[in-house]
């Protein structure tokens, strides 16, 4: 594994060139370029806000900011994994003719998507500042918690890189892997606190009289769920959350660092396993049946 990493380092300039190429290709033929990639999250959040605030009468303040702060990282993981699923098969004609570390292909896709994600976050911040200005500079949109964002980004990047390595390698030999993963990611969207809150899960598992606290832990063993909650708590100032039903508005629960530690472990476990699996399989890509 050390030798593989050294080889990857030797080819780092090719990796950057490939990231650049990917970004160029994506927006070569579209006039609005980067802004097209913002249309999807903005429309999604608009619709979700409409559904939750207007149809379901949810009273949580900053609801759309909460949704967006978790939806952007979720979409990054989703796109990084799904785009890289095809990265090796598409490049197979080159892979069969020239040597270069094959992991560069999925890594470039992940990094290109990561750059999009960072840009989208910047737009998100600009939007928060805009609202702050319009409402007369009353409540500052950021707290000191934002200092934690770099750590969150690194963990998110590690998890999606691991996922991308696994999926891209397996998809060379079993072409339906990407469909299975697509369905799983679609379902993961509902099992991740994006349009609702960890507090909803907490109420449902702790306050119904049944001993179902373990379900809360189980739910958060999915690192994406823990990451989504941590993004919300990092990027949006804490406020009361409307969990609905007889409980109504409740105080936000504190960030659970044990669960976050578990998410970090799982993420880097996925990364290590992915890198190991990819290196085991990469010499057979050219010999696929």
């Amino acid at each position, binding site marked *: 594994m050390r030798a593989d990493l050294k080889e990857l380092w030797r080819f780092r300039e090719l990796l950057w060139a490939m990231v650049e190429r990917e970004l160029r290709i994506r927006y070569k033929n579209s006039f609005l370029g980067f802004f097209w990639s913002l249309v999807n999250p903005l429309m999604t959040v608009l619709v979700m806000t409409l559904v939750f605030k207007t149809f379901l009468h949810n009273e949580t303040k900053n609801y759309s900011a909460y949704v967006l702060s978790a939806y952007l990282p979720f979409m990054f993981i989703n796109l990084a994994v799904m785009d890289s699923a095809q990265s090796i098969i598409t490049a197979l004609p080159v892979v069969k003719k020239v040597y270069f570390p094959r992991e560069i292909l999925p890594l470039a896709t992940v990094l290109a998507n990561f750059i999009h994600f960072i840009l989208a976050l910047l737009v998100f911040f600009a939007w928060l500042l805009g609202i702050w200005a319009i409402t007369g500079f009353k409540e500052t949109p950021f707290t000191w918690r934002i200092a934690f964002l770099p750590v969150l980004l690194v963990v998110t990047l590690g998890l999606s890189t691991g996922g991308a390595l696994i999926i891209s390698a397996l998809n060379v030999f079993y072409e*339906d*892997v990407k469909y299975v993963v697509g369905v799983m990611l679609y379902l993961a969207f509902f099992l991740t606190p994006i349009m609702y809150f960890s507090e909803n899960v907490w109420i449902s598992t702790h306050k119904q009289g049944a001993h179902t606290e373990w379900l809360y832990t189980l739910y958060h063993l999915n690192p994406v769920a823990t990451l989504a909650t941590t993004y919300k708590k990092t990027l949006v100032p804490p406020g009361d959350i409307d969990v609905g039903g007889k409980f109504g508005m409740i105080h936000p629960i504190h960030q659970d660092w044990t669960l976050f530690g578990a998410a970090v472990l799982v993420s880097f476990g996925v990364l290590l396993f992915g890198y190991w699996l990819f290196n085991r399989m990469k010499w057979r890509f050219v010999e696929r*049946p």
Partner: protein
Amino acid sequence: MEVCRASVSEPALSVANLHKEFLLSHSGVGSLKTLALWWRPRRLEHLHVLRGMSFDVPRGQCVAIVGRNGAGKSTLLSLLARVYKPTSGEITVNGRIAPLLELGAGFHPDLTGLENILFNGMILGLNRKQALDRTAAIVEFAELKHHIDAPVRTYSSGMQARLGFSVAVHVDADILIVDEVLAVGDHAFQEKCYARIAEFRRAGGTILFVSHDMDAVRRVADRVIWIENGAVAADDGPAQVISAYEGA
């Protein structure tokens, strides 16, 4: 001028007892579904393409590899280009290899010629600065002029091949691995390619190429290796091997 490089005792390329086996699956497992339905032990065919091949290529030599289709020529070149991993045996390379297994492999149709030069040069082992420095020379050699700013998809196949060849000969490799790609472009461009290859050889470069064109082999090779059934059938000067090969 630099002929002295050829006198260095260490060979540019050394192949020792090289074996390559492929697994051919007839069930064609290509999805999880078929894997689940074909859980029985699958009928796998072992295809023994290279069966213990050994040879050394001294620096500065130009070696032609001849043989029938399926003899293992392309597999050998792919192994030298590190596209495949050997099943067993050793390949030792002293110096940088530029594989020309296919001209313009890795060109992206939507990017311009210039963007593709940068990218292709880097795939072949240049760093960004070296690739940028050589761009002018590459464009000049490929005779693309103002087309270089157009997307490669607008190029004719001859233009693409010219650009591919031009990039490959400008990456300062010590060893060129060429798979039947010299039959590109018009007569004038082919002459230019031969001139460039002669220049490369004068500078002490090593060449290994596969060809079915015996005139080309006679013209440039100073040694011919004839491959039959994944092993070396003959290894000698062009005159001897070609007459034996054509007689067979």
